[in-house]
């Protein structure tokens, strides 16, 4: 059970961090992430199955494609609307997810697919069934977490990303070109969503709804950790993963998807700033 919770957490931690980063810079919850993840899954599928690339290469290509798509969506859809309220943009992002999902359904049909990977017998460890793919997901998720931390903490561009998220006006006054930083952030986040699509295809199945089904747990993890705080998102992902697996012990697994909703509802009532977020005090 603990292992499954870890896999869950590893699956939602990178996109939850990306979701948090995007929120920090763009100041609205972007629900188009479901669509973006689906793009990643289908891009990887296209490179892997019809085009016959090995999965690691297909995954890299899918990350590139998704980064490009997310950046394009930002430039074409969200940037022209940046004067609008966060609520408007949120609704737009939900619409965007539906559009992306249905465009994919149009080209690929609603069939359930999987990657072309050698079938391996799951390992048995202390009574748990562990697939090599799941181990890979956990390892890569850790690598991504460390890499993102290094980017944010030790590089110029990472520092600028945090500065723009913190105080865009002051960042401009100090000479930071916010458009460029925002473009970079959307691309990085896009790559993470793309990778999540690949992971989801490995651990679950590839279908047009794959991203949408992950959206609520990702959102729950991000706000659990305090929205806008990428590190909190990691802890949030662990807690959501654990909560989802714990539910299965008591309830039929169909209810698993509801766990995210319950977490969100409880949190918004008790601690709207998240576990690690700081309450905004404005004078």
């Amino acid at each position, binding site marked *: 059970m603990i292992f499954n919770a870890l896999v869950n957490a590893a699956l939602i931690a990178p996109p939850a961090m990306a979701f948090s980063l995007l929120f920090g810079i763009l100041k609205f919850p972007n629900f188009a992430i479901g669509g973006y993840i689906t793009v990643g899954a289908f891009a990887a599928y296209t490179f892997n199955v019809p085009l016959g690339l090995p999965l690691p290469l297909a995954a890299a290509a899918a990350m590139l494609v998704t980064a490009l798509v997310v950046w394009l969506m930002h430039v074409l859809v969200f940037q022209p609307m940046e004067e609008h309220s966060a609520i408007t943009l949120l609704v737009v992002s939900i619409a965007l997810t539906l559009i992306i999902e249905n465009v994919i359904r149009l080209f690929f049909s609603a069939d359930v697919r999987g990657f072309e990977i050698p079938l391996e017998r799951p390992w048995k460890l202390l009574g748990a069934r562990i697939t090599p793919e799941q181990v890979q997901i956990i390892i890569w998720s850790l690598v991504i977490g460390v890499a993102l931390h290094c980017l944010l903490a030790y590089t*110029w561009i990472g*520092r*600028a990303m*945090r*500065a723009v*998220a*913190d*105080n865009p*006006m*002051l*960042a*401009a*006054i*100090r*000479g*930071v*070109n*916010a458009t460029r930083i925002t473009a970079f952030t959307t691309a990085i986040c896009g790559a993470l969503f793309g990778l999540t699509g690949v992971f989801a295809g490995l651990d679950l199945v590839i279908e047009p709804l794959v991203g949408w089904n992950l959206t609520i747990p990702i959102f729950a993890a991000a706000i659990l950790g305090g929205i806008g705080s990428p590190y909190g998102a990691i802890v949030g992902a662990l807690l959501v993963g654990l909560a989802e697996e714990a539910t299965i012990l008591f309830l039929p697994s169909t209810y698993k998807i509801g766990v995210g909703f319950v977490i969100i509802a409880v949190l918004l009532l008790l601690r709207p700033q998240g576990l690690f977020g*700081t309450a905004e005090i404005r004078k």
Partner: protein
Amino acid sequence: MSDALLKTRALQSGYGKTIICHDVTLDLAPGEITCIIGPNGAGKSTLLKTIAGVVRPVSGSVTVAGREIAGLPAAQVARSGMAYVPQEANVFRQLTTHENLTMGSWGDKTRTQEACDRIYEMFPDLARLRQTRAGNLSGGQRQMVAFGMALMLAPKVLLLDEPSAGLSPLMVGQMFDIVQRVNGEGVAILMVEQNAIQGLRIADHGIVMAAGRVALQDQASNLLASKEVSELYLGSRS
């Protein structure tokens, strides 16, 4: 004063269709302090924001060392040798003191190391607090971070919007000392100040703004001595 470092000529600006600053013409000579005083809503802050490129001018000109910068976005004005310290939200609260300083040299990252050393020498308190998040600093410390960040690229002109706002009376005095020290290193300063008397005492020139226009311009000492100014603008506040 044709050798002025910062000049505005017939500068007009505002928000949307509302014009706040009318026809502002001023000069700031190298190494001088000019203090802008005036009642609330006189357009003092808007004037600084316009010079810094945060608010777009409607018409008129702003030059720094002879180069026209009116209408350039703030991010480009930042490379003109002039640095602006806003009144509020003038540090990155989520970043540490040190990270804040490094953001001040975004325009020329090769100078970061040398500039940080210089700022820590200038504000020894900051060296001790380098790993502290700016959001957790006291008001006075935060103001030092804001100053330090603005001074990273050794600007020739510093624009200060109410540097003493929100500070305890004790810190206000220290703040003016710091302003004078920065000025002592040859940086020309244009500052807006609510503490009109203290502001004028350290200034070479004073500008009185009212209703978005320059009402009076003179030597700071003359403004301090003027009966009219003290009755109308300095009030009983000291």
